[in-house]
């Protein structure tokens, strides 16, 4: 009898450590965030006054938050397209063996080992209006990070660069899965390299492409360090993506309720995009 009980309980014991951590630092705070988003809070972050959906209403009517949504959307599009393009080019360049391939493939994967904050500090100097290499090489005199027209593009390009490393690995794995013989047959039939790329390589990559796309979108929404260091949401809120806006509202304005509501909106946006992507995948991607 005792043995039987033990056998029934034992499996759960192996889940206790991970469930404890998930419970305290993921499920509980997630529910608490939803709860906080329905309240006005004091400076200590304690819920004081139940206001229902008012935080959400205020947000959707505030020009600043609408701007945040718009900025986030542009940012995500540039980051995802840029990061995937860089990774794809690198993977195609390393598709066939050649002398030095190991050096080059390590180089292309390297950005994934670099912290967003470290990269941001390097880019800060590269984009420095007086001493930066970008202005010097291009012979320009642009204050990249202080101009509302260029600041967002700069942080997005930096983020795309950071993400390109792991994208390169995904795409390399995807290219490795494509059967070599279809290229040989295509060459015999007289298909050019460009035709082969668009009608064989890209479709062959579609399963991994889809996975990479989902991961990239989710990651892009969560970028923070580079924006904190490079622009702090400015100039003129032109880089005030949702995550930065959450940080500012909670830890500078002490409006935890509003920040919590923004967190919930961010979660809902990411969830909807993920669900739509999986719906599309079921219909469109051929394996």
């Amino acid at each position, binding site marked *: 009898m005792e043995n039987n009980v033990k056998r029934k309980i034992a499996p759960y014991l192996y889940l206790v*450590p991970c469930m404890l951590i998930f419970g305290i630092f993921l499920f509980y705070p997630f529910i608490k965030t939803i709860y906080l988003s329905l309240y006005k809070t004091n400076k200590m972050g304690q819920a004081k006054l139940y206001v229902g959906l008012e935080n959400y209403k205020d947000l959707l009517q505030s020009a600043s938050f609408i701007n945040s949504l718009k900025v986030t959307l542009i940012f995500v599009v540039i980051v995802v397209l840029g990061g995937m393009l860089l990774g794809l080019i690198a993977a195609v*360049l390393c598709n066939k063996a050649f002398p030095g391939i190991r050096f080059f493939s390590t180089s292309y994967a*390297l950005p994934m080992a670099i912290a967003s904050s470290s990269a941001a500090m390097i880019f800060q100097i*590269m984009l420095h209006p007086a001493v930066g290499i970008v202005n010097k090489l291009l012979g320009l005199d642009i204050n990249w990070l202080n101009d509302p027209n260029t600041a967002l593009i700069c942080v997005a390009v930096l983020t795309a660069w950071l993400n390109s490393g792991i994208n390169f690995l995904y795409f390399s794995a995807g290219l490795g899965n494509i059967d070599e013989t279809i290229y040989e047959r295509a060459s015999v039939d007289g298909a050019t390299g460009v035709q082969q790329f668009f009608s064989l390589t890209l479709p062959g990559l579609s399963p991994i492409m889809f996975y990479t796309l989902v991961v990239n979108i989710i990651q892009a929404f*969560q970028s923070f360090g580079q924006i904190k260091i490079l622009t702090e949401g400015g100039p003129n809120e032109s880089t005030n993506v949702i995550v930065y806006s959450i940080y500012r509202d909670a830890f500078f304005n002490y409006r935890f309720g509003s920040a919590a509501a923004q967190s919930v909106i961010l979660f809902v946006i990411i969830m909807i995009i993920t669900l739509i992507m999986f719906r599309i995948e079921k219909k469109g991607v051929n394996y």
Partner: protein
Amino acid sequence: MTQINDSVALAVGDMSREELLELKKTMNAKALAKRRSRTALRITANVVFAVLILLPLLYAISIALMPSNELFTTELNLFPKNPTFSNFVNAFRTVPLLKFILNSFIMAGCITIGQIITCSLAAFAFSFLEFKGKGILFMVVMATMMVPGEATIISNYLTVSSWGMLDTYQVLIVPYLTSAMGIFLFRQFYMTFPISLYESAKLDGCGNLRFIVKILLPLTKSAIGAMAVYTFINAWNMYMWPLLVTGSNNMRTVQIGISMLDSVDSQSITLMIAGVVMIIIPSISIFIIGQKQLIRGMFSGAVKG
């Protein structure tokens, strides 16, 4: 197609043996030249693209070695004229960089070891044991991947500050002691082992924990290696959480500490970049050493579309 073959056959028929050998030679030489030029083209394209990708890093190294008076010129100064290591030395003098590095090592090391333990335990239960609610619990774990860290970070901050845990090692480490991705990765590996492996070990009187330590862990070295490299680098590079929960020099991690070198004094640019280069070195070294493991672990079975 057949027509061409016929004409080729005709042409070949007209040729002597010497002429044929000659033709073969020139064709081979042509093919070789073509292959060579293709390889050359590929290498050239790779060099150009690699320089583009590595540009920020190469530039950082160059600036870190540059005396600060060389930085402020209007001419193109790609390389330091009088390279110096004084920036590195000064960076150590200006901020407690060694302490930051130690803190980051402790944090990233504990998180890595902790995740490997909790994830292998959970993955073991999910792949070898039968219990009620297994499917649902696994779905719940996988669903946590969808919750962005930012959706919980405010509440987490409020929780740990109400516990008076701010500015300690525990607060940096404990929230990250498990990961859904790790559980998924390990389970993916464990599923490739036949259940009979577990059953026969059990018949021989091998307990569950001993089975994990003596049999599962050694068999999944590549997954553990991949997971360790990935987790360590991510923990080393963490920014938002350490920024919120650490306040004193004693607890700051490298990523937060290094931005202290980013002061208004523009003469300190070279100093700051020297600091950045030094904190990038550990994560890059671990990446280069563990790259093979990482790729093998990530893509064997785990991600196949």
